């Protein structure tokens, strides 16, 4: 196979994988929320209601596409794709496995190993907000505009702590490449702990996780949607597949954030204490490393659902207070201490 064919296969795989996660997550969300509230949840379509996402998809596709009369037409249609596309693109730099040998050729399980990988994810996360803003503004409805407004303010506030938390990780590993970061997390730390980012950067991890929830607009920080105040916020006026793209993009975003969390703080595709490549064949090792990565990612995806149905929503001033008065000072102190430690140990 030529190189471009391999690249094409990897891109298609990543898209299908991201889509599958998003589809299954809609089902997981509804079933898990039902479980937590002592209900059954959707259980009619297929076994355990597994075909429910498919039924929802058909419904969204066949519904009439309604546009408010006073909406800005072009921008209104531009919003949902602008929200969903960056979310998908961010997957390109996620290292979803080590490498697999097929037909004597070593294939790295990552679409593109660029040395600025992780800044790329941050940049795309920031671009995603334009989808919400454009959608909210173009709808020409007060709820939508307030939703978009909140989305921008929230993004600016939580980008700073997220960046500060990630800076400590960069200081620690000395690279921007996600693949190199994962490789540096092999072995043990202090003799008995896995050499994972979370044990070296516990505070950084907490700051990152909180900021990630805010960036993904998940409860407890889903103020841009906030049903009790804004109907559904920036996508109030959307229906049919335009709405579907927004909902979908959100789950794809969750998938990316979970994957980044795993790569930065939980050793990516590596298992603690065990080196899988020693006793597995080259093909089996590739598959196994992907499975390990996927299981870790699935845990964080479930954590998103878990938190959503456990914690109540913040008030908007509390959200801003947490961002500016708690997370940013904490992040700065953490960065300072880490820089000092790194400087002293080198």
């Amino acid at each position, binding site marked *: 196979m030529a190189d471009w064919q391999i690249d094409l296969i990897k891109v298609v795989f990543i898209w299908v994988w991201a889509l599958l996660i998003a589809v299954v997550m809609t089902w997981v969300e509804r079933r898990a929320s039902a479980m937590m509230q002592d209900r059954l949840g959707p259980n009619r379509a297929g076994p355990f209601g597994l075909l429910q996402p498919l039924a929802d998809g058909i419904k969204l596709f066949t519904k009439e596409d309604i546009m408010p009369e*006073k909406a*800005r037409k072009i*921008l209104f249609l531009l919003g949902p794709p602008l929200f969903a596309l960056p979310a998908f693109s961010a997957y390109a730099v996620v290292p979803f496995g080590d490498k697999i040998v097929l037909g004597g050729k070593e294939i790295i399980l990552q679409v593109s190993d*660029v*040395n*600025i990988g992780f*800044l*790329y994810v*941050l*940049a795309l*996360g*920031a*671009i995603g*907000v*334009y989808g919400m*803003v*454009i959608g*909210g*503004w*173009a709808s*020409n409805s007060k709820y939508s*505009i307030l939703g*978009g*407004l909140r989305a*921008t*303010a929230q*993004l*600016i506030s939580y*980008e700073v702590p997220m960046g500060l938390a990630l800076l400590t990780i960069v200081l620690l590993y000395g690279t*921007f490449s996600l693949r190199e970061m994962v490789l540096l997390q092999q072995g043990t730390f202090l003799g008995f702990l896995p050499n994972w980012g979370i044990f070296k950067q516990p505070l950084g991890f907490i700051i990152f996780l909180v900021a990630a929830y805010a960036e993904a607009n998940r409860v407890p920080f889903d103020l841009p949607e906030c049903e009790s105040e804004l109907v559904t916020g920036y996508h109030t006026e959307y229906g049919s597949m335009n709405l579907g793209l927004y909902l979908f993009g959100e789950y794809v975003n969750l998938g990316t954030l979970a994957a980044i969390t795993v790569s930065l703080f939980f050793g990516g595709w590596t298992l603690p204490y065990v080196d899988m490549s020693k006793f597995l064949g080259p093909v089996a090792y590739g598959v196994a490393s992907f499975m390990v990565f996927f299981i870790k990612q699935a845990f964080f995806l479930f954590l998103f659902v878990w938190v959503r149905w456990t914690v109540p929503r913040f008030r908007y001033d509390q959200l801003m207070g947490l961002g500016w008065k708690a997370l940013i000072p904490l992040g700065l102190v953490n960065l300072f201490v880490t820089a000092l430690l790194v400087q002293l140990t080198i």
Partner: protein
Amino acid sequence: MDLYFIVFAIMAVGAGLFTITAKDALPSALGLLTVFIALSALYLHLHAPLIAIFQVSIYAGAILVLVVFVIMLLITPDEDLENVQKNMSYRILGAFLGSYLIAVLAIGTKGVKDLLHQQTLPDGFGHPALIGDMFFKQYLLHFEVASVLLLVALVAAIYLAKKNI
């Protein structure tokens, strides 16, 4: 002239023209977003991936989001900006600022003769580590002056925003 450059250069210039001619404020901001992304693609083409990413994450991701925030806070889609655009003092001010920028650009043309003969890139050009090295060794003073400037702006903003400190 290669195709890649031409496509993104046209995109940048076109979006720039749209930015200054658009009737509404938000589409104008989106035009600016397109300019930033086209510039970022051009930086990538010049083997400077770090600058390209910073262009997107800082300018498009932070500064322009702030601009959009202000637009959404102050202007509704129904409102038009004609009274602002017809205001003569804004136009005169814009003319002054514009001519100043053109003058800066004209100074930049001094380096044009360097473009004529091809140069080979130094080893590891555009690598983040190399840029960091340059910042903290060769250009440390410039770097610190820029950070002090930002600090001054920060203090000033807080002073303006808070009535009693």
